[in-house]
C-alpha cells in the first residue's frame, strides 16, 4: 500500500467513515502532502464509498484544497481592497523577484508556491500574507523577503 493510501486510511479512521468527514479527510491529506493527487482522491473515494468524480467535484470547489502540485511552503498574499491600498503589489513583486516565479507558480526546487488570496481577515494590518497556516501582518517588501528567507533556511 502506498503512503498516500495509508494516510487516507488513517484519516478516515480518525474522522469517521461518513460523508460528513470528507472535508476533514481532504484537509488532512493537503496538510501532509500539500495537494490532492489523483491517487489521493481515488483512495478517499474508495474509503468513503463515493465516486472519485464526486470527491474531485467537492475538492475543486475550495481554494485551499489544491488539486495541482504545490510547493512545500505555500505563500498566500492577500490581494483584496485594503491590502491593495496598503501596498500588496509591491510585496508581491518583491516575492516574485526573490523566488523567481510569478503568482500561481512553484519554485523549481518545489519549496515555495506563491499565490494570492481573497481577504485574510487582517485588513487593519495590511498588507498581509499567510505562509502555510502562519499569518504575517503589516508587511513591507523588505519584511516579506526576510520572512521567506527564514523559511528557506528552516523549512
Amino acid at each position, binding site marked *: 500500500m502506498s503512503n498516500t493510501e495509508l494516510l487516507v486510511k488513517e484519516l478516515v479512521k480518525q474522522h469517521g467513515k461518513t460523508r460528513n468527514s470528507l472535508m476533514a479527510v481532504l484537509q488532512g491529506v493537503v496538510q501532509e502532502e500539500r495537494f490532492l493527487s489523483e491517487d489521493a482522491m481515488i483512495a478517499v473515494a474508495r474509503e468513503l464509498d463515493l465516486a472519485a468524480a464526486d470527491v474531485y467535484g467537492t475538492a475543486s470547489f475550495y481554494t485551499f484544497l489544491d488539486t495541482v502540485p504545490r510547493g512545500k511552503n505555500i505563500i498566500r498574499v492577500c490581494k483584496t481592497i485594503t491590502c491593495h491600498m496598503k501596498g500588496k503589489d509591491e510585496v508581491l513583486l518583491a516575492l516574485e523577484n526573490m523566488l523567481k516565479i510569478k503568482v500561481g507558480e512553484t519554485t523549481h526546487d518545489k519549496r515555495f508556491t506563491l499565490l494570492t488570496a*481573497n481577504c485574510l481577515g487582517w485588513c487593519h494590518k495590511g498588507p498581509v500574507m499567510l505562509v502555510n497556516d502562519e499569518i504575517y501582518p503589516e508587511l513591507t517588501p523588505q519584511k516579506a523577503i526576510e520572512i521567506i528567507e527564514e523559511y528557506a533556511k528552516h523549512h
Partner: protein
Amino acid sequence: MDKPIKKVDIIFEIGDDYNALDVLDKALARPADDIVLDLIDSGLKGRGGAGFLTGLKWKFTKNEDSDIKYVICNADEGEPGTFKDREILDRVPEKVFVGMAICGYVIGAREGYIYLRGEYNFLVKNLLNKLETFNKQLKERNLDFVIGIRSGSGAYVCGEESALFESMEGHRGEPRNKPPYPTVAGYNKKPTVINNVETLVYVAMITRLGVNRFKELGTKDSRGSKVFSVSGDTPIPGIYELELGMPLSQFVDEFADGDAKAVQVGGASGSCVPRKKFGDTIIGFEGIPTGGSMMIFNSSRSMYNVLHDYLEFFTEESCGQCTPCRVGCQQLLKGIEAVKRGEKPPAYLDELKKLTATMRIAAKCGLGQSVGNPFNSIIDNFREEIIY
C-alpha cells in the same frame, strides 16, 4: 438624532470577578423558556449582518420536535474589511463557548460546532485546548453538550448558512433553496441554530449583565452595541465596540484621517456612503445595517479601483450555481472595464444597474443579491470616477 458616539467595552472587558462559567451556571439555573423570553426582550439581533431576532431563532428551533438538534457558531467571516470574529475568538473564546452552551441547553441540542474559516487555522490549536477544558466542565455540570471545531477551506460563500451546512456535510459549499430554514432543517437536515460569533458572545453578556444593561444601549430598532472593524484610510485601524445608532459623520470624525471621501459600510457587500451623506446616515437597522465592517477611503483613492476590487472578489467567490450571479458578476466587472476604456458609452452604466436589479431578484443567495449594493452606491455617487 445626534447621539454622540459611545465606546463601550462589554465583549472584551474582563473584570477581576469575571468567570465565564459563572455566566453559564447563571443560565443553567433558569428555565429555558425564561432565557428565550429575555433574549427576545433584549432585542438582540444577529450580528452577522442579516439582523434576525436571536431570541426568535432560538424559540423556533426549541419548538421543533426532533431528538437531534445542533448549535453552529458561524466563524467563517470572509468579507473584505471584516475581522472582528477572529479577534473575539482569539481574545475571549470562552464567552463564545458559553453562548453556544446556553443555546444547547435552551434548544435541547447535544452537539455544537464552530465552523472556522480555513484562513484562521492558526487559531485551532488554542481553541481546541480551551475546548477540552470547557467540554469537561460541561460534563461536570451534567449538561449533555459537546463543542467541536470544523475547518473551512477558503470559500467565502460558506459563510452563507446553508452553504456552510453543505460544506460540513462534505459537499461543495453551494447555498440551498430556502425554505426550509435552518431552524427546521439545517446541519444534517436537523433543526439547527446557527449564530455569528459575536451574537453568541452577546448572549453570554446579556446573561451576565441583564437585559436592561443591553437595552440601555442603542436605539429602538438597533439595540445594544456591536463590534466594528475599521480599516482603510484611518490613523487608528482596528476593532472597536460601539453603541449602535450613531450617525456616520461622528464615526468619521472619530476614525477617519480628516480627508474621508467615502465610507464603505458593511463590507464589500454593503453600501458606499459619500461625504455629503455622512451627516444623515445612521449606522443601525434604521439606517445602514452592518455586520460591522467599515472601510474608509480618502481623496487619494480611485473609487473605480475600489469597485473593481470588489467586483473581482465577487466574481471569484460566486459559487457559480445560479446564472444571474455567476454571469452577472462577470458582466459587471467587464462592463465597468469597457466603460473605462471608452468601448462603451457612460450610459452603459445604467444598463449594468438594471442587471444588478435582476440579480437582486433572481440570485439564489445573499452573495449575488447584494452585489448591487456596492455597485449602485459607487456608480451613483462617483460616476465620473468610473467613466474617466
